[in-house]
């Protein structure tokens, strides 16, 4: 019942059922972005916050690794089986984490949340992407934007949900961790229900299906192929590594703000911690909105064009931040950093459609899986880079308010690297095209 063959849509199936199926899954696994909410409660058990943070880093690393390793299996097995596998891994990870808290076993937290949960993240992240693009060949950017927006929304849901559950269980819990164990178990149950709903709802289109009234363009655009490239060949092409660089630079630049948002605005504009927390919330909203907005716009501008917009806009805005700070204009700073975060989200959401344009739609899930390693690396190394630069500046006696300027200029440089990589993208050599259609 989970095989691809059992999930082929019957005649008359409404393709608009597929985005909510994808979002129902993505908004659960996006909880990983809100993992930091558990740091302080778990630290009361005797673990340090950095020890707890390692579970998050393992999960993100496994996200990239598992997406890269299992990408071909995902394409072969279809979205439903992959979504069920993601459910089993991710929710088992949460359950094991709850037991790790109860038994005070840090290694179990690493194995549960990090290793097993991380595999669930990788599988879930790529599971619905190629299916969505097959259902929406007329608007692939918008389709993947919706799903990847769901992942961004996962942080907005996961963080307050965990907080409310911990508040609820805190007084009655007999275990250490201020109700974290019960919160993790409850979240496992809620997320399992939502992910199962998504897996039940999802369908793949029959071979050769296309939307009524939609005709594939007869004069193909230069950077949009109608052919397909296998994953084993795709990752050896320059185009793959150029897009890998594009994603890696875009993610690292976004993390430049996200990773340091709260201390940064407090140091730069002397706002209260509550206001700084609000700023982080606002950035998450911009990240979410950008995923849908920019990826939908990319259907009109083309993928290469939209990444030019991300890089030009992002680098210009980053370069303007020191001047904004000099003007002591916190409102303008919030607007500018919010805009930067929309391009960060947009970069995530548009990359599957860019891959589809260059490598075709048949193997795009597996190719996307391998490209996700760029995100893993950026997500782990990016915050450390930013953290070290700001710390070294402060240690060198630079005014804390000015200690971030070098980070902003570094981000401009990274975005220029991304711009250059995007500039170099050319159509894939036809010798790499596959001849056999995927059954």
């Amino acid at each position, binding site marked *: 019942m989970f095989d691809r063959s059992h999930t082929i849509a019957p005649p008359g199936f*409404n393709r608009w059922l597929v985005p909510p199926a994808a979002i129902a899954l993505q*908004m659960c696994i996006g909880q990983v972005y809100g993992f930091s909410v558990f740091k302080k409660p778990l630290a009361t058990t005797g673990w340090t916050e950095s020890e707890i943070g390692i579970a998050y880093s393992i999960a993100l690393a496994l996200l990239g690794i598992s997406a890269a390793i299992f990408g071909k299996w995902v394409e072969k097995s279809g979205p439903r089986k992959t979504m069920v596998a993601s459910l089993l891994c991710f929710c088992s990870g949460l359950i094991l984490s709850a037991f790790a808290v109860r038994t005070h076993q840090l290694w179990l937290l690493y194995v549960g949340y990090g290793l097993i949960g991380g595999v669930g993240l990788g599988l879930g992240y790529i599971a619905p992407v190629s299916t969505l693009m097959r259902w929406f060949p007329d608007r692939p950017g918008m389709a993947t934007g919706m799903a990847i927006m769901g992942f961004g*929304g996962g942080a*907005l849901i996961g*963080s307050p949900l965990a907080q409310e559950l911990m508040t609820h269980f805190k007084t009655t819990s007999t275990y250490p961790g201020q109700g974290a164990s019960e919160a993790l178990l409850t979240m496992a149950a809620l997320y399992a229900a939502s992910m199962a709903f998504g897996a039940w709802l999802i369908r793949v289109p029959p071979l050769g299906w296309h939307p009524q009234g939609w005709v594939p363009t007869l004069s193909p655009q230069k950077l949009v192929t109608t052919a397909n490239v296998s994953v084993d060949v795709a990752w050896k092409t320059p185009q793959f590594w150029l897009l890998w660089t594009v994603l890696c630079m875009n993610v690292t630049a976004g993390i430049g703000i996200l990773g340091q948002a709260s201390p940064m605005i407090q140091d730069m504009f002397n706002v*209260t911690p509550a*206001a700084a927390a*609000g700023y982080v919330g*606002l950035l998450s909203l911009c990240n979410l909105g950008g995923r849908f907005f920019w990826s939908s716009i990319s259907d009109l501008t083309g993928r290469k064009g939209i990444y030019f917009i991300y890089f030009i806009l992002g680098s210009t805005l980053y370069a303007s931040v020191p001047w904004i700070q000099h003007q002591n204009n916190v409102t303008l700073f919030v607007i500018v950093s919010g805009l930067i975060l929309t391009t960060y989200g947009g970069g995530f959401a548009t990359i599957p459609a860019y891959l589809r344009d260059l490598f075709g739609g048949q193997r795009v899930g597996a190719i996307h899986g391998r490209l996700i390693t760029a995100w893993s690396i950026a997500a782990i190394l990016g915050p450390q880079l930013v953290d070290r630069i700001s710390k070294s500046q402060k240690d060198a006696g630079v005014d804390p308010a000015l200690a971030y300027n070098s980070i902003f200029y570094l981000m401009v440089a990274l975005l220029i690297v991304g711009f250059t990589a995007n500039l170099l993208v050319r159509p894939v050599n036809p010798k790499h095209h596959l001849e056999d259609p995927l059954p």
Partner: protein
Amino acid sequence: MKLLLSWLFVISALGWGVLKSVQKAAPLFQSSQTHSR
């Protein structure tokens, strides 16, 4: 019906998250109006 319920489910969940974020962001605007360096 299935279409309506499925969208209602995901929009409600995301809407709840957005609402919580907006509530969290409120002090920022209060601060930016009243606080100066």
